């Protein structure tokens, strides 16, 4: 018995190990020179520059617009002024603005002692100072200061890790429903099309309610309609599977084509714009501790689903139906209701995914969601849920989704072409299923 647990433990954490190895690998290959633009970096830079320059020396401060550029430049010029350096001008903008700042200073005929800049502007100054100096000799002696760089993997930047989670949130959320469907030994191929369908329905509802300037009430209502319509589609699928005993593969294949076709028909084959930037709140907003709203939603839904699958009777029913439907029925599990429930839930979650994706682009696009169903299934299978039904865990699916996301993100960071990405996806899925088969095989060995 002790051995068995040990083996189970090893398999459970096998996927986690794969995730860790992938993260390690991508961290290793994306190590790059980083140049900070934080306030503390500005303070350090100001100290270094004022240490090297004599007081009353004339300098100008340059930073690229956007991001931390403004706070970086402000801190710099404040600190430099405090240290007794005379800051001629502070420019936060594009390279053309920097050029203008330098020529303006050059025109005054004074001598420039230093240029204090972020990495981008320091690059600009390095490349252009000599040429500018020909017309403005006062600039030639200027010393260029930029923050000290350090080496750090692009993959491990906080911003990038949040991207990884944000990019997979739609797939992961739908994978919650898919996990339950697959645990009941079913499958749902319609979720990708439902993303497009939901996005289009949502955008069209918002348009018809509020025209080109919808209120936030219209946005909420539109999102609700999109989600509910997809819930109904899921309920319909569940009905086909339970009442008419159509295999889930065929039933959802039919819905997949119908939903995709309807999305194109309703939208007239063109993306439907939503005329209110507030619609981007769900897909792009960051309201809590700098975490993307879609990631928070994903984590909340996973927590609920985990509790549901491990602590409630509906969770036990779902496992029972997948393990042995006949035995489940005989022991009083309402098999049909359970199946209706999982397909409806998957429909609702696909609808939510569609709203999230529409929100990301502030458009309902009938082209969206293509092949997402396969990514969702891949996440579930990689997460250790058995396609034979009866086995699987929500946390495993979350890890599976992260593995897919990390591969995707890592390959974007390193510039692996998309055909190779497909080869790698395929390999990951096969290896995951291989582990699954081995698990079943070895469990049998143990029992005998």
């Amino acid at each position, binding site marked *: 018995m002790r051995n068995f647990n040990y*083996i189970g433990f090893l398999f459970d954490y096998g996927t986690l*190990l794969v995730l860790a190895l992938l993260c390690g*690998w991508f961290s290793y290959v994306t190590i790059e020179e980083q140049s900070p633009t934080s306030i503390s970096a500005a303070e350090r830079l100001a100290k270094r520059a004022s240490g090297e320059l004599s007081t009353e020396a004339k300098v100008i401060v340059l930073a690229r617009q956007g*991001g931390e550029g403004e706070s970086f430049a402000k801190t710099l010029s404040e600190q430099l002024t405090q240290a007794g350096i005379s800051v001629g001008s502070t420019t936060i903008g*594009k390279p053309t603005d920097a050029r203008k700042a330098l020529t303006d200073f050059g025109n005054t005929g004074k001598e420039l002692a230093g240029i204090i800049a972020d990495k981008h502007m320091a690059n600009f100054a390095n490349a252009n100072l000599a040429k500018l100096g020909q017309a403005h000799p006062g600039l030639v002696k200027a010393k260029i200061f930029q923050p000290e760089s350090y080496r750090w993997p692009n993959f491990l930047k906080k911003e990038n890790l949040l991207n990884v989670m944000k990019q997979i949130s739609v797939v992961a959320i739908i994978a919650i429903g898919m996990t339950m469907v697959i645990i009941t030994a079913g499958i749902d191929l319609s979720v990708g099309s439902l993303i497009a369908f939901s996005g289009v329905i949502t955008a069209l509802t918002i348009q018809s309610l509020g025209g080109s300037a919808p209120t936030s009430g219209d946005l909420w209502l539109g999102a609700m309609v999109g989600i509910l319509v997809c819930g109904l589609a899921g309920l319909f699928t569940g009905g086909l599977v339970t009442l008419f005993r159509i295999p889930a593969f065929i039933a959802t294949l039919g819905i997949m084509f119908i939903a995709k076709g309807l999305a194109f028909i309703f939208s007239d084959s063109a*993306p439907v714009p939503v005329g209110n930037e507030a619609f981007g709140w769900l897909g792009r907003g960051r309201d809590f501790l700098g975490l993307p709203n879609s990631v928070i939603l994903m984590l909340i839904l996973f927590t609920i689903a985990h509790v549901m699958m491990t602590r409630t009777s509906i969770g036990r029913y779902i496992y029972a139906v997948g393990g042995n439907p006949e035995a489940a029925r005989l022991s009083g599990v309402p098999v049909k209701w359970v199946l209706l429930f999982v397909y409806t839930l998957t429909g609702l979650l696909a609808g939510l995914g569609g709203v999230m994706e529409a929100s990301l682009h502030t458009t309902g696009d009938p082209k969206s969601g293509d092949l997402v169903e396969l990514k969702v299934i891949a996440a579930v299978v990689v997460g250790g849920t058995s396609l034979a039904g009866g086995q699987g865990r929500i946390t495993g699916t979350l890890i599976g989704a992260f593995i897919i996301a990390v591969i995707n993100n890592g390959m974007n960071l390193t510039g692996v072409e*998309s055909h190779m990405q497909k080869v790698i996806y395929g390999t990951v899925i096969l*290896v995951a299923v291989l582990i699954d088969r081995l698990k079943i095989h*070895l469990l049998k060995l143990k029992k005998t």
Partner: protein
Amino acid sequence: MKHIAQYLGLTALTIALLTGCSPSSDKPTTDDSSKAAGDTSAPAKTKGTIAYTPLTLSNPFFKVIGDHITAEAAKNGYDTLMVDPDMNVKKQSDQFDDFISSGVTAIILVPCDRLSIGPAVKLANAKGIPVFTVDAKCAAEGAEIAGHVGTDNFQGGELAGHAMIQALGENGGKVLILDFKKANSCVLRVAGFKKVVNAHNSSRTTGKIQIVAELNGNGARTEGYQSTADALQAHSDLDAVFAINDPSALGAYTAIEEAKKQDQIKIIGFDGQLDGKQGIKDGKIFADPIQHPDKMGQQIVQNIIKYLAGEEYEKDALIPATLYDKAAADQDPDLN
């Protein structure tokens, strides 16, 4: 105990398989980037990274643009990051997120969707990363594009018109146009073509070039074939076809060959894709105005370098098309 040993072995094997496959497949690109950097990084380290996300890399046109971006960027001391969104705008905006978090110097974009890519471009704008478009423009409101390089499609259409006049000679004749109205670039090609043909006609009383039909070729072989077959039913005395790209031109050729009229009907195509060029060499197509993805890639990088130096550059640069005919095809080493 034996089982555990087996287990450990198998797990190790699968993990080795998994991880072993990603490094080896990554190698070409890491090699590429180090090569790109290697050209210049001997004296100084790389100045930054220029990211490129085209419509799809499956189309050689965008691959050629990308290769010339890489070469031109390396010449100026920049690395290149080339990714493939596979015509999927969700993937493309995810790639924008990744570009932004890894702090690229500039982004070159061929929008997968001229509107839906807007929020991603705005995000890059907010971080101060300049976004340039190549080939196709971004039409999203409020998305700031620092510069564009494209083909001069109107001028290319004019070239096609001149080629048509040359092909038909003094006698003039009846012409079918295979258009693709969904793409603005193709509308411009037809407009340029008509301008030249109309000017030609107004100066003469006989031997005019008459456009007898304008049908949708959908820019594809299948529709080019069908529309031409239909047009041949209606106009059995057709003399020439102008197709807005090579696939529809080759589709038209199939229909003409089927009707055994390949000696009677001349075809002018557009683009200069490899199979189009081969068609010119084989005498299927009379001539093509061709685009220059190589120059587009070089031009866009040169514009970025000028932008980064704060210098003036052409915000909306058009690369002229040139005419590619049988004589050029016979000299082309890429053809057999």
